[in-house]
């Protein structure tokens, strides 16, 4: 086991965790209170194993989940992206950012062991951050959950120099709780994680788009639109990405659907109007933007600016 991995991140993390020590522990997970639909035993043998070099649990954990998600890479290649030599470790935000740089969605799970098990049961390995020692002497460590056994109450990990480590649920809960239950999946865009929640998932895909991975973000929103057909966030996200990709006809279609389903959404009305204006249909755009301005609210300034633009174009 790698006892010194990321030890020097301690100072940073302790600051972030200060004041949270009194949070009540999550209820203990037993075979009774997990979803009845979960298989009793799962192990994802196909997740590749990259043994960790000194302190580099971050790159090696990432390499395992990224390869599983179809990205050919190894810890050595990931090291410059995620590893901070002076801290001998990797920060969580960098872990997520690296997943996005490789065109995959980085989704942080809810702090529930049941969610980790469900992801694994659906075939997705989960990166977790553990504190292997104690709060006052933290030893941070990234590992990958690849399986579990409900009868034996064990979780199965690829961890450090161990290709297959088993930990009791209780030990795992204790070490994982000290990282505030940090758990992340890296999934291909067309695959929405089993436990994903709408708003959090849209935020994760939005972050992928901001990284410049617009095609991947588009695919991820399309998958999300199947899971949550009514979601305004998904529709606005998909429309915005289509717009940035200069697929204006597609953006128009998506924003129209958003306006139909959410007639009081200033965002949907405004963005439809702007798209129509870019398509040279300012007369049509004006009606939508007027509705948007009339609705008021915090986005009214943007709608007013859109309206002014459209009116200027119409006067020419």
């Amino acid at each position, binding site marked *: 086991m790698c006892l010194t991995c990321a030890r020097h991140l301690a100072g940073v993390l302790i600051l972030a965790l200060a004041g949270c020590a009194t949070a009540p522990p999550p209820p203990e997970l037993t075979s009774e209170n997990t979803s009845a639909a979960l298989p009793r035993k799962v192990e994802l043998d196909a997740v590749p194993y990259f043994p960790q070099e000194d302190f580099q649990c971050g790159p090696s954990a990432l390499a395992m989940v990224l390869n599983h998600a179809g990205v050919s890479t190894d810890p050595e290649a990931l090291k410059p992206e995620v590893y901070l030599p002076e801290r001998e470790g990797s920060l969580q935000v960098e872990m997520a950012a690296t997943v996005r740089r490789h065109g995959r969605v980085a989704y942080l799970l809810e702090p529930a062991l049941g969610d980790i098990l469900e992801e694994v049961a659906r075939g997705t390995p989960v990166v977790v951050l553990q504190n292997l020692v104690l709060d006052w002497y933290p030893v941070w460590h990234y590992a990958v959950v690849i399986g579990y056994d409900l009868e034996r109450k064990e979780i199965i990990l690829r961890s450090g120099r161990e290709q297959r480590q088993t930990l009791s649920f209780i030990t795992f809960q204790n070490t994982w709780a000290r990282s505030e239950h940090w758990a992340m999946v890296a999934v291909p865009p067309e695959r929405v994680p089993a436990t994903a929640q709408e708003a959090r998932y849209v935020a994760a895909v939005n972050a992928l788009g901001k990284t410049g991975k617009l095609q991947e973000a588009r695919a991820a929103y399309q998958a999300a639109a199947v899971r949550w057909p009514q979601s305004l*966030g998904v529709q606005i996200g998909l429309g915005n990405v289509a717009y940035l990709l200069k697929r204006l006809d597609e953006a128009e279609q998506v924003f129209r659907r958003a306006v139909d389903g959410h007639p009081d959404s200033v965002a949907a009305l405004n963005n439809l109007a702007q798209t129509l204006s870019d398509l040279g249909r300012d007369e049509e755009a004006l009606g939508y933007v007027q509705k948007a301005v009339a609705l008021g609210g915090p986005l009214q300034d943007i709608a007013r600016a859109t309206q002014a633009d459209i009116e200027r174009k119409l006067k020419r």
Partner: protein
Amino acid sequence: MISFNSGFMRWTSRVMMVLMASMAMPMTASAQMVGTEAVIDHAAAEQSRAKILSLVNRDEVRAQLEARGVSMEQAKARVDALTDEEALQVAAQIDQLPAGGDILGTAVFVFIILLVTDILGYTKVFPFTRSIR
């Protein structure tokens, strides 16, 4: 008959220059799109507002507020008027309080009462409330 004198030609070329310049401008320079984050944040804030309202609506809270002369209409109107940011902040605070199943935890109960009285200007407990008075 229009005579193509030099003044007219100069005028035309100036108009053309302006037109061409505006055509050459990148599409996004003038675009006023609402970003996806604004929609996500707003959706989260709506959820928070609903959560706060559901707490304010509980019988024990209502009774306490009415005993202090605060009408439910006033209380609800003020929760609705919280900005997205404030609603998120309040809901996050509530989440951090110990709660106990069906029975409203004492901490949450006191928090909600003080939140509403803060907003109405009777108290000033929280840094993030703006009184309506």
